[in-house]
């Protein structure tokens, strides 16, 4: 057991011992390392002012740079990673990084408080070699707020970087990758489990599946932490003392997506961004849902299994995973059981998870899913919690619908299928009339609640309209989407 974190900070190896179990990376940077260029804007992973990059070796022997919100990342989660902050970009002679120069030249800072976060989001894109093309910039910067309304010059700065990078491929940062990889590989004692903090708050980072299961068996009250995009807020916003946390991210193999050609096995530490990249071609509907789910910083930290285990009634992933017939695997030390994901959610805040079990995988059909559609209604288009979410999937054989899955979020205390509405479609031809009939049956399936995101009436009407839209889209072969400047494709017969 190790009580010391090892990581690389701005190119230098650091060993840190004696820190609290729930200290965040931002607190450590500002208060212990006296690196105050990284700012706290919201302390809940929304504004991006605290963005730093966290790099780990990927499967191809290169470093994969993730922009992450340091404000909700526990310090233990940077173990054996390379962190770079805004102070670490200029070279030792004081020459600025091209990302920094581009921001100055475009006059892209005003009050300057958000600037370090923007710089680090751009730096991650620069290092990864994607995210700087004109169509990608908004996505790259979506997790960074600027309140002086400086987005135009910031985007202009980003737009100059795509070409700059191509002509500067031998940049010293790239050359440093090799040295950093070597340093990460040779971290002392990195094969030992990590335990930070004191008995009032411990952070455990087991490094093998066996030691993870043992740690959870010994600490059955522990909170399992994936990306801390929710648990982090329990600490920074609710000021809770969590007692014991066990992190999935240090376990060898937990960060992998296993692909057998038919099914994808999503292991516990796989992030939303990893999944998005994996399925972008086969299942663009799911990729787009993941993109809207959260900004890059959140997608790069938050995990799929964490999102399932968290069991929010309005979580966006469960409906779509249920719609394609995914399974969940729960494990204890030596036993695993696997069942349909839809049966995991029993009632509001109640799941079929026994003491000592953890979510060891989500198993999803690889796709393609030609009839899958995901519709999300939220107050803000991107990065918002759904008021209503429909993931709909059918199978058509010989012109007849023979399988139907209509999975809704926001309509009940749990993500739930609309059994009555589904039954109205089974055995019917692909015809708008039957979707209208199914939509009319939704009140038999759901009695939604009223809350700040929508009234019960609004939710029901939205759900019915989404189901109608699904039918119209399938029948017409067209899609109707809000994109950029508004409604791009209309549907004939839409009333």
């Amino acid at each position, binding site marked *: 057991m190790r009580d010391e974190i090892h990581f690389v900070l701005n190119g230098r190896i650091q060993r840190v011992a004696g820190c609290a179990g729930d200290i965040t990376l931002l607190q450590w940077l500002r208060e212990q390392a006296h690196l105050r260029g*990284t700012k*706290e804007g919201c302390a809940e992973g929304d*504004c991006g002012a605290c963005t730093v990059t966290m790099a780990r070796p990927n499967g191809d022997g290169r470093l994969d740079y993730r922009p992450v919100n340091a404000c909700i990342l526990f310090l233990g989660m940077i173990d054996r990673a390379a962190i770079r902050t805004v*102070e670490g970009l200029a070279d030792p002679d004081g020459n600025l990084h091209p990302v920094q120069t581009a921001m*100055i030249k475009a*006059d892209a*800072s005003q009050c300057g408080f958000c600037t370090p976060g923007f710089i680090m989001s751009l730096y991650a894109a620069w290092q990864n070699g994607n995210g700087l093309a004109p169509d990608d910039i908004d996505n790259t910067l979506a997790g960074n707020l600027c*309140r002086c309304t400086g987005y135009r010059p910031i985007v202009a700065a980003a737009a100059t970087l795509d070409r700059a990078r191509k002509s500067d491929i031998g940049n010293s940062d790239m050359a440093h990758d090799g040295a950093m990889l070597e340093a990460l590989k040779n971290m002392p004692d990195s094969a030992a489990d990590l335990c930070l903090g004191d008995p009032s708050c411990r952070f455990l980072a087991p490094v093998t599946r066996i030691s993870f299961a043992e740690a959870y068996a010994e600490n059955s009250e522990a909170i399992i932490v994936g990306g801390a995009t929710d648990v982090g807020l329990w600490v920074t916003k609710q000021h809770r003392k969590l007692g014991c946390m066990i992190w999935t991210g240090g376990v060898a193999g937990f960060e992998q997506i296993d692909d057998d050609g038919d099914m994808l096995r999503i292991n516990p530490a796989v992030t939303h961004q990893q999944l998005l990249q994996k399925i972008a071609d086969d299942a663009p509907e799911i990729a787009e849902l993941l993109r809207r789910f959260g900004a890059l910083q959140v997608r790069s930290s938050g995990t799929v299994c964490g999102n399932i285990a968290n069991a929010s009634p309005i979580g966006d992933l469960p409906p779509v995973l249920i719609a394609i017939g995914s399974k969940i695997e729960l494990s204890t030390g030596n036993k695993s059981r696997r069942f349909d994901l839809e049966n995991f959610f029993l009632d509001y805040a109640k799941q079929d998870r026994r003491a000592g079990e953890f979510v060891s995988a989500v198993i999803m059909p690889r796709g393609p899913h030609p009839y899958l559609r995901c519709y999300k209604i939220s107050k803000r288009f991107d990065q918002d919690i759904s008021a209503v979410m429909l993931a709909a999937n059918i199978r058509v054989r010989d012109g007849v619908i023979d399988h139907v899955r209509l999975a809704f979020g926001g309509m009940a205390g749990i993500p739930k299928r609309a059994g009555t509405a589904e039954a109205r479609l089974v055995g019917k031809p692909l015809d708008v009339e039957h979707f209208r009939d199914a939509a009319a049956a939704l009140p038999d399936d759901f009695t939604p609640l009223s809350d700040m995101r929508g009234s019960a009436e609004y939710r029901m009407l939205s759900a019915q309209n989404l189901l109608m839209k699904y039918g119209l889209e399938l029948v017409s072969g067209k899609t109707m989407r809000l994109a950029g400047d508004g409604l791009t494709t209309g549907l004939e017969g839409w009333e």
Partner: protein
Amino acid sequence: MSTRRIAGDIQTSQHHDSAAKHVCGEAVYVDDIAVPANCLTVLIGQSSHAHARITRLNLSAVAAAPGVVAVMSAADIPGVNDCGPVIHDDPVFASDEVCYVGQSVFAVAAVNMAAARAAITLADIDYEPLPAILTIDAAMAAGSYLGPPSEMIKGDSKAALAAATHQLKGRLYAGGQEHFYLEGQAALAIPGEDGDIQLFCSSQHPSEVQHKTAEMLGLANHAVTVETRRMGGAFGGKESQGNLPAMTAALAAYLTGQPAKTIYDRDDDFMLTGKRHDCRIDYHVGFDDEGRVLAVEFTQALRCGMSWDLSAGIAARAMCHADNAYDIPHMKINNYCCLTHTQSNTAFADLAVHRGCLASNG
């Protein structure tokens, strides 16, 4: 002719003088200033009631909590208990009555934020709830105003409206707005020689911070020095609302002799500070067959919150800009500054010019 150029002249495109520091993380904001090891963290204890009488305030458990160095309430203020910018109706700490959820009732100065957070939960406060007015509609119905309504008159709107071929009447509402400066309210106070206080503030009005702090501590103005290097956004939200964090830090430094810092986190900032005035405007317009506007009457109601803050000036802006760019021969504008049991609304970029313009453009 000589073409000698002056550095920074208007002929030359200039980058932001701090741009290189911004992009390197070297621009220093208040919370970035290196402080002595004995610097205290100040945290404000807030009201849990919109409107109530404080019947008991017992802070002994707060004072006894681990890491707490000082507890401050109205009784600990040596001078004037007020942080209001114009009218003295904005207590630093509520003494007898609280007037909004989130209002400052006391503050704790502790060795770190964790100790301060734990300590403020130990406050023993009894409230006797009083009726609360939260909305413009409720305030107008109850006649709850900060002062007498204002009226501006041009021509004879009543007669012109009666004579107009067409008339329209209606009501519109415009919501409030949170400033969301990326850097929350922040102030650092360092005690100096002879009882002097040096303040580093994220404030749009450092001289007001100086005057209010001196008044609160019963010091001469020269004993308080205020420095504002830069702000991480403000948009009007740090004009008067920067006073309270600065003054609580100064009071802690004054009472303990140690440096002290008040940094609002985002949640506290939302609760403590005023925002843009939301408003209700009733309009009555008369016009001819060609659509020419002949006469207008506006009744503007602004939700000012529990004190004046800068609302008088803001209301004046809303009235003075009500005709926007139009020449309307007959006008009457009535303005009501509604007293509500909510945060005291404050300056916000353009003050209330667009609130006034809104109705004439609608």
